[in-house]
């Protein structure tokens, strides 16, 4: 029983990392419709950026911010330099997915070529442990959950209460219409990629802070749970992504507690497949479905 309770606590940590990553993924997807399979590799890239900073003696939390900024810059570059030109070139949705997959492989293996196949760790301390009943968290984990909470509140505040955030949602809902309102959709798209990349980078660094050891494939191993969380909630829906992260994160941990641990991810994925069977657009996505039907 206490394992079950503890697993719910662990689920909160998994959920935190997943939520940051999934919200980041879904933000840019909502605005630009790019199903970015290179996302996991960008996470790894940010983790390495933070690693380099950390090696120079920069504090891990500062390195995390630097990793986030690296992720933001890389994402913007990727969209401006690769995805947008390909889309303008007339490549369809399926073609763009292949571009993202190709980029993911290039980034992942490029990182391996640079940093080698070995494992790296940050210079950091996990800090003291805190006990809440059967739940145990280290200081770093509490920090991670705090960052996740702050990110979610920040994203919510941005989208619901600022002009820019509303413009992002408007662009996501209907870009030509947003343009006719005077919204500079290219600028909004850039912001969406920057923000998405920032969250992606932060997620990459805190994933590694939590794993405590990583290599060039670490981010791409984490990609499918991120996609699953984003899709489960209804892609392009930040609140859906948060909900999806909660479900995937909790189900994996609780499944590991009550059934076979080696199938914990599989169980979460099967839930996703079942949800898609009944709600092909995810839990929170009923309104956005007009988008592709009307060209």
């Amino acid at each position: 029983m206490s394992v079950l309770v503890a697993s719910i606590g662990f689920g909160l940590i998994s959920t935190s990392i997943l939520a940051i990553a999934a919200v980041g993924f879904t933000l840019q997807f909502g605005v630009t419709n790019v199903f970015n399979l290179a996302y996991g590799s960008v996470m790894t890239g940010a983790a390495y950026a933070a690693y380099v900073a950390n090696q120079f003696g920069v504090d891990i939390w500062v390195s995390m911010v630097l990793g986030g900024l690296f992720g933001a810059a890389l994402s913007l570059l990727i969209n401006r330099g690769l995805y947008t030109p390909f889309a303008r070139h007339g490549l369809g949705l399926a073609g763009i997915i292949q571009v993202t997959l190709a980029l993911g492989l290039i980034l992942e293996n490029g990182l391996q070529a640079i940093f080698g196949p070995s494992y790296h760790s940050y210079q950091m301390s996990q800090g003291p442990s805190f006990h809440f009943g059967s739940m145990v968290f280290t200081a770093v984990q509490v920090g991670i959950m705090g960052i996740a909470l702050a990110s979610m509140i920040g994203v919510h505040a941005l989208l619901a209460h600022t002009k820019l955030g509303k413009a992002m949602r408007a662009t996501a809902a209907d870009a030509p219409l947003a343009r006719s309102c005077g919204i500079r959709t290219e600028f909004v798209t850039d912001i969406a990629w920057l923000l998405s990349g920032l969250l992606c980078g932060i997620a990459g660094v805190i994933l590694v802070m939590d794993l405590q050891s990583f290599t060039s494939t670490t981010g791409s191993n984490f990609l499918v749970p991120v996609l699953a969380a984003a899709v489960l909630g209804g892609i392009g829906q930040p609140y859906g992504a948060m909900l999806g992260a909660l479900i995937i994160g909790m189900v994996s941990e609780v499944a590991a507690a009550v059934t076979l641990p080696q199938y914990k991810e599989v169980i979460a994925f099967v839930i996703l497949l079942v949800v898609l069977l009944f709600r092909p657009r995810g839990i929170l996505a009923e309104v956005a479905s007009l988008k592709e039907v009307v060209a």
Partner: protein
Amino acid sequence: MPTSSDKDGHRPAPQLLLRELTAGYGGTPIIRDVSIAVGLGEVVAIVGPNGAGKSTLLKAITGQIRSLRGSVRLAEADVTNMRGDLLARHGVGYVPQVRDVFDTLTVAENLEMGAYLLAKSELPERIHEVLAIFPALQKMRHRRAGTLSGGEHKMLAIGRVLMLRPTTLILDEPTSNLSVSLSKTVLNDYVRRTADAGTAILLVEQKAVAALEISDWAYLMMGGAIRLDGPAGELLDRPDFRQIFLGHVAKHIPSETAGTG
């Protein structure tokens, strides 16, 4: 300064002026040498059957496709091939035929997006003004636009575009999918009144009779070109118009068949 054309065909100075505009997809022109003028306070209708090129024309004006030849001018400014967001800065409001509101945003947020270019301080006043025109929107401010009915939808779309207080308004078949009575309300109460307040309105309509009733001037478009134009009130009675256009749509006129088509 006259704000509306009078019955003698004297028209105000053009606010929106198209000269020999030619545009299409992939280098193939769909519309050819279209010249149109819309003055402040005027409702100018473009009527024509399906496939006449009306949608292509609007896409060319609003910068969604590149025009191959000709020009679009707004008062003194050349806005040919200008991006949509810059057009909005020139005071052009555009209501597409479908997907005319942001479905995932609330009614209030839709209005706010309509006023995107205005300072935040102007917002309450603008919302107040638009709600005065469409009081029904008041009650649904916090509803998601995607959940509105067809009439409410169009009301919001026009309300949204009015937020910017546009000098030029482009409406693409605002009455499609609306009932006959609702269509009349939209055209008479919203469109005509907006023009009377000093806006230049370009109205594209398939429901020719209803559109012509509230328009000052009208162009008949067919096969990608303007076939004839004239004061809207006279056009319906002109034999050449009846022959070219209404002959296509229906044998009997001017019943409402043509209007609800």
